[in-house]
C-alpha cells in the first residue's frame, strides 16, 4: 500500500545481530538496569503516614460554604442537582424565616441537602453550576465506610463548621477567572 502521509518510517527491526542472538548481552544489560534500581532510593509514598500533596484544584469531597459571617451560601436553587450527571444530589428548599438571617444568606435555603457519595463521580460540574459559590469540591478525600448508608452525606457533613473553615481560596481559579 502506498504511503498516505509521506511521513512514515518503519521502526521495528526484527533482524537480530549476532550479539543479540547470543541472549546474554541483552540479559546482562537488563540485569544491570534492575541492579541499578536496587541501589536507588525508593519512590513510594508510605500512604497513611506520608500523604502526597494534591493539586489545589483537586476534586474531592464537597463542602457547602458559609460566607464571612457564617451564613450558609446555598439558596437551594437546584442547579447543582440538575448539572449532576450522576444524579447524586438531592435537596429540599425552604423559605428563610424571621430571625434566621444569621444562619442563611439568602431568602431560601436548603433544609436538607444530600449527596450520595457512592453515586458521585467527582466531575466538578456542580461546583461550576453553583451561582452562589456555595458548593465546592475540595482536596479532601471521601473516607471509606463499611455501610452503604454512611455515604449519604447530609448537611451535617457537608456544611463547613463555623470554626473549621475549609480553605478553598486556591480553587477560586474557577470562580474568579482572570478576564
Amino acid at each position: 500500500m502506498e504511503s498516505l502521509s509521506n511521513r512514515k518510517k518503519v521502526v521495528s527491526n526484527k533482524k537480530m545481530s549476532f550479539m543479540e542472538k547470543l541472549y546474554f548481552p541483552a540479559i546482562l544489560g537488563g540485569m544491570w538496569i534492575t541492579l541499578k534500581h536496587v541501589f536507588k532510593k525508593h519512590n513510594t509514598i508510605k500512604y497513611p503516614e506520608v500523604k502526597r500533596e494534591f493539586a489545589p484544584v483537586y476534586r474531592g469531597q464537597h463542602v457547602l460554604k458559609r460566607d464571612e459571617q457564617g451564613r450558609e451560601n446555598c439558596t437551594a436553587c437546584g442547579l447543582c442537582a440538575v448539572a449532576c450527571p450522576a444524579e447524586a444530589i438531592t435537596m429540599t428548599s425552604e423559605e428563610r424565616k424571621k430571625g434566621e438571617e444569621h444562619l442563611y444568606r439568602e431568602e431560601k435555603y436548603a433544609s436538607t441537602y444530600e449527596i450520595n457519595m457512592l453515586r458521585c463521580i467527582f466531575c466538578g460540574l456542580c461546583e461550576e453550576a453553583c451561582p452562589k459559590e456555595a458548593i465546592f469540591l475540595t482536596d479532601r478525600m471521601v473516607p471509606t465506610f463499611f455501610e452503604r448508608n454512611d455515604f449519604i452525606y447530609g448537611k451535617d457533613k457537608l456544611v463547613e463548621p463555623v470554626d473549621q473553615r475549609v480553605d478553598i481560596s486556591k480553587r477560586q481559579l474557577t470562580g474568579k477567572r482572570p478576564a
Partner: protein
Amino acid sequence: MIIKLIIVVALFAITLGIAAYLTLMERKVAAWMQDRIGPDRAGPFGLLQPLADGGKMFFKEDFRPTNADKWLFIIGPGIAMFTSLITGAVIPWAPALKTATETIAIQVADVNIGILFIMGAVSVGVYGIMIGGWSSNNKFALFGAIRASSQMISYELAMGVSVITIVMMTGSLSLTKIVDMQHGFWDNGWFTWNVFKQPICFVVFLITALAECNRAPFDLPECESELIGGYHTEYGAMKLGFFLFAEYVNMFISCAVISALFFGGYNFPGMDHFSGLTLTILGGVAFFVKTFFFIFVFMWIRWTLPRFRYDQLMHIGWKKMIPIALINLLITGVVIAYTEGWFSKSKDAESASNAKTEQPLGVNTSFEKTKTGNSL
C-alpha cells in the same frame, strides 16, 4: 547418632526457616528493583510477613474441588514438599568438625552417590506438580502440569550432562569429594573452584537449575498471565502453601548445589589458616553467603527477564542446552584424557592411584543410562 539427629533436625528447621524467609526476600528484592519498599507493616521491616502468610494459610478454609481426585489432590503438594526437603540431606554444609577424638561431618548423609541422589529426588519432585495439576480437574492446572513435566524432563538431561562433566573432573559422585576437590581458592597457578575450570558447564547448570526450579524465565508451569496459577490454580490454604514452600526450598537447595559444585562449597580463600570449630563455622558462613548470593541472582533474573514461550523453552532445552553440554563434556573428556596421558604411548598414566578413583568414564555411562531410562 545423636549428633546426626541434631543435624537432621537443625537442617530441617533451617531449611524451612530459610524457605519461609526467602518468600520475604523475594518480595523485598522485587520491591527494591522496582523502586518500592515491599512489605513493611508486618513487624519491623516486614519481618513477620512469612509468619503472617503461614498463619493465614493455615487457618484458611481447606478446599477441594468437587470433581478433583481426592487422594491425589492431597498427595500432590505432599510429594512436592517431601522431595524438596530430602534433597538437602546430602549437601555438605560446612567443613567437617575435627575434634580430638572424632570427625563430625556437617552433613546428614555422605552417600557416595550424593549428586545422583539429588538428581533423582528432584525428578521425583515433578510428580508432585503433575499429580497436583492433573487431579485438580482444571484445564489450566492440567496445562501447568504438562508444561512442568516436559520442562523437567528436557532440562534434566542437560543438567545431568553438565553434572557429569564435573563428576569426570572429580572422579566421584560424592558431593563431599567434589567440594573437597575445590579446596581453598588458588592452587597450582589456577583457581581451584570448578566455575573457573568449567564456566560453560556452570552456565548450563545455572540455566537448567532455573528451569528445574520453575523460576523465571522458565516459570511456565505457573505463569500467572497465561495459566492463572498453573498447576496450583485449584489449590488454596496450606496445600497451596506447600507448593509455594516447595518452590522456595527447591530454590534454596539448587543454589546450595550450585555453590557446592561450582563455587567451592564451604571453601574460601585462606581457609588453611583456620582449623577446628572456627573453620567449620567460617566454612559454613562461606557456604551460606555463596548460596544466598545465588538466591539473589535467581530473584534478580526473575524480576528482570521476560519468560519464554513453551516451544521456545523446548527448543532451548533440546537444541541448545544439551548440545552445548555434550560438546563441553566431550572437550572435557579429551582434556582429561590428555592430561592423564592416555594419548602418550606410556601407560604410566593409568597409575594405581587413578584406578582407585571410581573409573570416571564407567560411572558416567552407567549414570547416563539410568537417567535416560528414568526420563523416557
